[in-house]
């Protein structure tokens, strides 16, 4: 199973180990881990609440992974996205890709996290001392995603 959405934390080493064991032809594994920060635009964040659209989020992530597999020589992909209440420094998301060569592993990992930000139905609410605030898609995230259009 390459996509999991869960409340529980995940262990990066375990997930990397599973990708490593998936094929003797794996020459490189790249992983991205997203963490909760305690500051957002200089405002203190006490915790965040993450929700998703069950069914659609898995479908959207699988579509992004399929697209990455078409663009690069990818042997394995693991995506874990956590939901629920998370505190500063907690892990939110893991994207790990395995390939024979590092170039393909680096590019596919970055592609997947960039598209996850703009195309997968997850929502984050930041709980601050002055109240809760739903985060909106950042322009910088849209720009990062659009770079991949120019390269295709």
């Amino acid at each position: 199973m390459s996509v999991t959405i869960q409340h529980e934390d995940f262990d990066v080493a375990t997930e990397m180990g599973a990708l490593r064991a998936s094929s003797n032809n794996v020459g490189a594994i790249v992983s991205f881990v997203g963490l909760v920060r305690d500051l957002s635009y200089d405002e203190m964040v006490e915790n965040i609440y993450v929700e998703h659209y069950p069914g659609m989020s898995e479908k959207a992530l699988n579509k992004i992974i399929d697209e990455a597999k078409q663009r690069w020589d990818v042997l394995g992909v693991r995506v874990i996205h956590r939901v629920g209440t998370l505190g500063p420094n907690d892990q939110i998301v893991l994207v790990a890709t395995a390939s024979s060569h590092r170039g393909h592993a680096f590019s596919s990992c970055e592609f997947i996290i960039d598209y996850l930000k703009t195309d997968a139905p997850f929502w984050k609410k930041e709980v601050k001392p002055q109240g809760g605030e739903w985060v909106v898609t950042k322009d910088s995230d849209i720009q990062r995603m659009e770079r991949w259009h120019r390269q295709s």
Partner: protein
Amino acid sequence: MHIKILYFGRPSESLKLSDETVDVPSSVTTLGELLAWLRARGDIWAQELTENRVRCAINQEFAAWSAKLKQHDEVALFSPISGG
């Protein structure tokens, strides 16, 4: 026409609703018309459900406001996404 509506993110919180099934009049044929029909409930509905504040999906695919609705569609209305 019966439509199931799911709410996520900010609209779900402000409307205090995660899902509902509605029976819309025959004048409602597109997502944009469904949104306007929901806004006619007034108050918070009118404030929250404007085309520039919410995004939408039909049957788990992102959709435009001009998209046509059909019987038993699953529509989702949500604030801009912000995962990762």
